[in-house]
């Protein structure tokens, strides 16, 4: 067993983990990154399409190019990098100590003694079982991300004639990618009446290649003995498949792009509580979970549309860890809750008197919408939004004067998260779309 001691350990060396680690290292902390794969970069390395970095760098980069912008600085920053290693356990040893155990092929068992942990494990894909598609279980059914890996990294052709279930961004990207390697993409089938992926990807990945998109349809069965032979597709009426109008598509490959789930098994085991809305940890305005000294950022916290926002959030997370380890005490906080037509808002609290960045995801498709921020029922901000849809996350930045300090005196004794998290400051912020 190898034992190491650092100020902070980052779990995951993808876009979130690298940005958080760099922010902490630049402030002088000793930092370790534990990464499962033999390389830094995470899922970006298999995303060889472009579209990354428009916010962060004002440039249109591929996934590996975007990752390189961080890999270089991380490698030269003196961060302790443990690759090809899996974190198996996080133990909290109060008041401030934590022990993190990782398995590494090269070093065996590695135990870190640390004061802060940043969870940056990313997310996983929902699979066939999660969406309960009936039929047989032949070869040729892949989640879109697995297919992307097989094509872009392993150099494999998954199949010749494909149907893609779900119009999430990875599925759309893979519709184009499969077409480019000579596979015929016969249909993208989306259960919702609107696409799950971004407008840009619908245009550039489907329309430009004349790939049909079936909205409001479901694949009710996947058939095939050894390899996929066909799928049965049915339109939905009032939420139920209409079997009289169903049709079959002969194909040898099915890709699933039916959503992503923050990967929080390690977080749960460490005692971190998970929000139903995001599938990620409850975090306060400092991106700290209910377990003191454990922070979260990136797709493990909530699934982002853009890596640029992951980077921004993770960098902020790193800065908050620095403040926390520097002994900075949080000021009183407001609780933040989703209001009308909003699925979630992250983070779950708000600190008046400083800039706060909130990310939220709409529940509705709407043109000419209005974003409203209320504190204890009183509107403090609003913004006009030309168009909202669930697949497009909204970033909301509130400056330090958005909520005046000391304006509230109500004592919030029992938030949904228990009295221990009493804000002291009092008040509840609600973010709605109308």
């Amino acid at each position, binding site marked *: 067993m190898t034992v190491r001691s650092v100020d902070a350990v980052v779990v995951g060396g993808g876009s979130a983990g690298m940005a958080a680690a760099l922010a902490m290292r630049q402030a002088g902390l000793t930092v370790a990154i534990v990464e499962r794969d033999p390389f830094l970069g995470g899922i970006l390395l298999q995303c060889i399409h472009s579209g990354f970095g428009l916010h962060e760098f004002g440039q249109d980069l591929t996934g590996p190019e975007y990752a390189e912008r961080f890999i270089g600085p991380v490698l030269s920053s003196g961060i302790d990098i443990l690759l090809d290693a899996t974190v198996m356990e996080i133990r909290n040893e109060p008041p401030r100590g934590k022990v993190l155990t990782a398995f590494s092929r090269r070093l*065996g*068992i590695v135990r870190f003694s640390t004061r802060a942990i940043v969870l940056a494990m990313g997310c*996983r894909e929902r699979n066939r079982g999660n969406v309960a598609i009936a039929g047989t279980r032949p070869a040729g059914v892949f989640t879109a991300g*697995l297919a992307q890996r097989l094509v872009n990294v*392993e150099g494999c*052709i*998954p199949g010749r004639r494909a149907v893609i279930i779900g119009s999430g961004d990875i599925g759309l990207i893979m519709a184009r990618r499969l077409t480019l390697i000579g596979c015929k993409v016969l249909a993208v089938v989306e259960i919702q009446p609107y696409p799950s992926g971004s407008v840009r990807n619908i245009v550039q990945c489907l329309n430009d290649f004349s790939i049909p998109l079936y909205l409001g349809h479901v694949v009710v069965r996947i058939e095939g003995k050894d390899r996929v032979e066909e799928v049965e597709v049915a339109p939905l009426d009032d939420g139920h498949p209409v079997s009289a109008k169903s049709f079959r598509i002969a194909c040898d490959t099915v890709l699933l792009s039916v959503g992503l789930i923050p990967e929080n098994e390690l977080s749960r085991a460490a005692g971190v509580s998970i929000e139903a809305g995001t599938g990620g940890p409850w975090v306060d305005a400092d991106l700290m979970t209910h377990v003191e000294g454990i922070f979260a950022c990136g797709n493990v916290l909530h699934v982002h549309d853009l890596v640029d926002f992951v980077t921004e959030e993770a960098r902020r997370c790193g800065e908050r860890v620095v403040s926390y380890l520097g002994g900075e005490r949080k000021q009183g906080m407001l609780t933040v809750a989703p209001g009308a037509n909003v699925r979630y808002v992250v983070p779950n609290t708000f600190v008046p008197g400083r800039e706060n960045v909130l990310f939220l995801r709409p529940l509705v498709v709407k043109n000419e919408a209005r974003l409203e921020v209320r504190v204890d029922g009183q509107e403090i901000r609003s913004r006009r939004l030309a168009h909202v849809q669930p697949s497009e996350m909204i970033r909301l930045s509130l400056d330090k004067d958005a909520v005046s300090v000391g304006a509230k005196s109500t004592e919030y004794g029992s938030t949904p998260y228990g009295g221990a998290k009493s804000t002291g400051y009092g008040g509840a912020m609600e973010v709605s779309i109308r």
Partner: protein
Amino acid sequence: MYDIAIIGAGVSGAAIARRLSSYRLDVALIERRVDASFGVSKANSGIIHAGFHHAPSSLKARLEVAGNRAFDALQAELGFPFRRNGIIVAAFSWEEMKVVDGLYAQGLANGARGIEIVGRDRILALEPALSGDVAGGLFAPEGGIIEPYRFVFALVESAVANGVRFLTGWDVTEAIRQGDVWRITSGTGEALEARWVVNAAGLHADTVSAIFGAEHFSIVPRKGEEFILERGAAGPPSRVIFPVPARSSKGVLVIPTVEGTVMLGPTAEEGEDKEDTSTTPENLDRVFDLAIRMVPRISKRDIITAFSGLRPTLPGDDFYIDVSREAPAFVQVAGIQSPGLTASPAIAERVRDLLQEAGLVLVEKPDWHPGIAHMERTRDRAVSDLDRLVAKDPAYAHIVCRCEAVSEAEVVEAIRKGHTTLDGVKYYTRAGMGRCQGGFCTYRIMRLISRETGLPLEKISKHGPGSELVTGRIGEAEGRGAS
């Protein structure tokens, strides 16, 4: 020339092969698929039944009780995952309690050990996950849970270690009796000779019987759909929970699997297609409705996968284990549906006895080894205890399947033992059986199979020829490796 050829490497064939491997006999175990346990035995509820479900007059009741008792010794020898966590039959009315009285009497007559009738308080104490609506029921402490494929793999490994020849991808298409010898031919034209033949061909036992000119019967597949909930799912019970049985099946159960997931099912539907292992949306709803009535906290949200299996049934629903009266030197082991897994050790004993009575001379091998090396698993070890394992092989510290914490060393062990398909590796190690269902580990396992066997990625299959995972490589000539 073999003394005995056993057709079918499901749990019956594997148990028979292992039992016969203790005698001075040349035994061949013939499997038409690429790996053992790939037929009926893989899609199984994984329950070691407790001996109260079947009438004392049936052969299956006798073999179930005898088989159940054999599992402690077998586990000590073979090291497969197995635990006696107890079976509960939950009754929700006084009418159902009357059925429970009957099960209890039946169990006593069968010789089931330790069974008791329990009232509401005791049943809820035994299983707090049960609905408060429960009236009482039956408790059978000797019931248990097992990983069926691991059990079959272990039986085959032990048989092979003791000299049994295991032939895979070998489908019997023709058999001719020449003098005292069966000459058996495969679909690919391979041939072997054996003095005796045991027909343990599961769903295809009727076809095999016909090939050998033995008894005419037909196996009717009875489909059962099962749903798996992820490790850590809400409200899992600690014991196997049965409803009060209906006439044609034991009902839809809630099963805490020996590996920590929860299984719901099976359904029971008779069909004609012996290859139809499809699932349906209607059954999902039905199974959940039935399961939630017994264990209210389980949730559809926790489903990670569904599968279905086929029970090979015969009219009358009993096992058919006997020496053929039509074909010479031919033993029938047919209709082995539930509780076949539980009964398998006793089925093997019975087949041995039948062969002996029919004149086969059995001489024990002085050097027979009942045990095999138990598989080391990273997941089973406390972190503090892993250093020893990692010192032996650093690949135990390299996690390939994150959901089930399966190490590279375990995957390599599976491949080196001949499990060279994705499903074979999955059944041996559990890699790919967790919540992400192979989303992250599939390519890693493909790489390891390729590294260990030399197969190119496009030749690696899910469960044998025709189920290759990818159809080609980018940049290579069209058609190469395409399916």
